[in-house]
């Protein structure tokens, strides 16, 4: 079997284990390429049946409109249930203090909304699109990652995971985060998207847009999420996004790649990691991801 077939089959197997072992699973859908890939894999795992889980989006309120439109179009065209919960509502209901200042992001607040949503629907498993190649804390996470009632990841208390046997037995209140594409790299995802002709939001391809230059990074001015400061330079450039997340912490890359072939050629040639290039949230400290995961982030 070709390596993409092996990765695909492994991911389908993991999703079916979720369907078989849990009563109320969910698929965390962000509108990014990794979760779009998960949805494609879910079709292969469960069609002609319905998905045994809804798609759940935690909306920071700072998302690109293109990603939201794509999300709604995808859920609609599949005829699958979409649940959206808003960080905005959590901030209001819980009277949370929103981070302010230069590089403020709602990324950390997402965790509160996610945990509330898990509680609201009593989800016992949440499928996510995290990959082990992304970050060193993720490199050590299990495919079935058991979390306590606070969503915390404890790297010292992980269950051994052998062969293709997954143990999803949990106590009430606990839940499991499941990562079917753990063993995929960024390039694997792109090669798969190309092979399977999976549709993506236009953000992933070169387009012209207005941006501000801050600390050497190109940040979108869209939606007025990032408040320009006097020394920020406003420019118009041809860019694409290598990752699509919250506007406040996702940087654009200058690129002319407007087809999948061109994007893949760029990814193959790049000498900078995905998160290093685009994610402001991981550059706060050496252990930024480790800390967020312990706090219940997926």
């Amino acid at each position, binding site marked *: 079997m070709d390596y993409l077939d092996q990765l695909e089959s492994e991911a389908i197997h993991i999703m079916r284990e979720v369907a078989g072992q849990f009563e109320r699973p969910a698929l965390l859908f962000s509108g990014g390429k990794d979760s779009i890939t998960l949805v494609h894999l879910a079709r292969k795992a469960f069609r002609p049946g319905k998905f045994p889980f809804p798609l759940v989006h935690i909306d920071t309120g700072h998302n690109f409109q293109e990603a939201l439109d794509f999300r709604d179009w995808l859920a609609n065209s599949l005829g699958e249930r979409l649940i959206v919960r808003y960080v905005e509502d959590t901030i209001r209901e819980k009277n949370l203090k929103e981070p302010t200042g230069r590089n403020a992001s709602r990324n950390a607040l997402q965790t509160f909304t996610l945990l509330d949503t898990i509680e609201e629907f009593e989800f016992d498993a949440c499928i996510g699109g995290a990959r082990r190649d992304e970050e060193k804390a993720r490199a*050590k996470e299990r495919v079935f990652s058991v979390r306590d009632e606070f969503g915390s990841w404890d790297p010292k208390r992980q269950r051994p995971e052998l062969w293709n046997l997954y143990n999803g037995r949990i106590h009430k209140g606990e839940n499991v985060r499941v990562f079917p594409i753990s063993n995929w790299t960024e390039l694997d995802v792109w090669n798969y998207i190309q092979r399977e002709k999976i549709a993506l939001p236009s953000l992933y391809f070169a387009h012209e847009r207005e941006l501000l230059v801050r600390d050497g990074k190109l940040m979108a001015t869209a939606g007025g999420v990032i408040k320009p400061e006097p020394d920020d330079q406003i420019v118009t450039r041809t860019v694409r996004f290598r990752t699509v997340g919250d506007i406040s912490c996702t940087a654009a890359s200058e690129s002319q790649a407007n087809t999948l072939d061109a994007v893949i050629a760029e990814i193959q040639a790049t000498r900078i990691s995905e998160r*290093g290039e685009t994610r402001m949230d991981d550059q706060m400290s050496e252990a930024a991801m480790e800390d967020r995961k312990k706090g219940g982030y997926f």
Partner: protein
Amino acid sequence: MSMDLLRFITCGSVDDGKSTLIGRLLYDSKSILVDQLEAIERASKTKNQGDGGGIDLALLTDGLRSEREQGITIDVAYRYFQTPVRKFIIVDAPGHIQYTRNMVTGASNCQLAIVLIDARNGVVEQTRRHSLIASLLGIPHIVVAINKMDLVDYAQDAFSDICIQYAELAKKLNVSQVSFIPMSALNGDNVVDRSANMPWYEGPTLLEHLETVELSNDTNLTLPRFPVQYVIRPQTTELHDYRGYAGKINSGAFRVGDAVTVLPSAQTSTISRIEFNEQDLTEAEAGQSVILHLFDDIDISRGDLIVRSDTQPIVAQNVEGMLCWMDTKELKVGSKYVLQVGTARTRCSIREIPYRLNIETYEHVEEVESLKLNDLAKVVLRTAQPVAFDTYALNRTNGGAILIDETSNVTVGAVMLEGET
């Protein structure tokens, strides 16, 4: 162009240069990106107080903050790289004695193990331990990486002596294919690039070996096994009678028209359709996730094993196997657990521990009543329901099982099943 996939485990400790070896593979195969390299360059300078010496490749595999704080490696880490020929998954498991559990976990999915030996020390206790685990877990290919050749002046004699020592050890183990490669991970000799310092070595470099080792015989192709994961029943008007069994073929191949048996109930039927991605296939083989349909409307649910009727597995309630105990709480004779084989789960009790294996001398320690974390032992189990399996030696994907603690829900043991007692 079709690329395949190789999962391999690196066995050794920091002292053997394991981290440097992984760093070297990633670095010389150009899998390290600029920002990651800059980060380790900065860290190398801090660590070596800026006095030249180049970059410390071992830092590439540096782990979590909680590990750095305690100076230990907690767990198995997974790393990825690829060449035009293959995608590689490196399973990086800590090498110390107390981490048998982690190495067993990491080794369970691997087709190849790299056993690192320090050329100055030759075969040591740790080598014996790692080789035993690789053999118990049925890893088909072993590469003995004789590292730090620079510290023995790249001498052919040093290499040959260790090969002889290891061949002695391998006789006591069940390993099918062993290759020896002399190298210096620190200097890059024979890792990715051929060494100019060892003209007497004519074999492949490590990467050449990893790229060319033959993998097609690693999966059992003769025993068709299909554990049912999930039953797909859309129950819509147009698919009113649709009933498909979703799963991944563990081993062997199935064809439409094959006579099959569903275990443990032993009901029989014939495959009417094999479906993938809403298209019909005439056959499907080990590794593929598909949907099977049967002619007869029989009672099948998650946990059942569909096999081709002319190749029956063992179906038994009294079974024996080699156990790796993975919990801090001791295992005692008489204790009850949940046994998971494939998708089937049933309660079981530990009837007997015929012996514990000394992981360095390979001697059997008899009259054992309990097992501690990281112990390896022969056990006899009695299950509540019959379980269907093959011996681990014959069919790795249908002979591995886990034990789950019923109260904590934690995975506490791994069993390589050996047969009925």
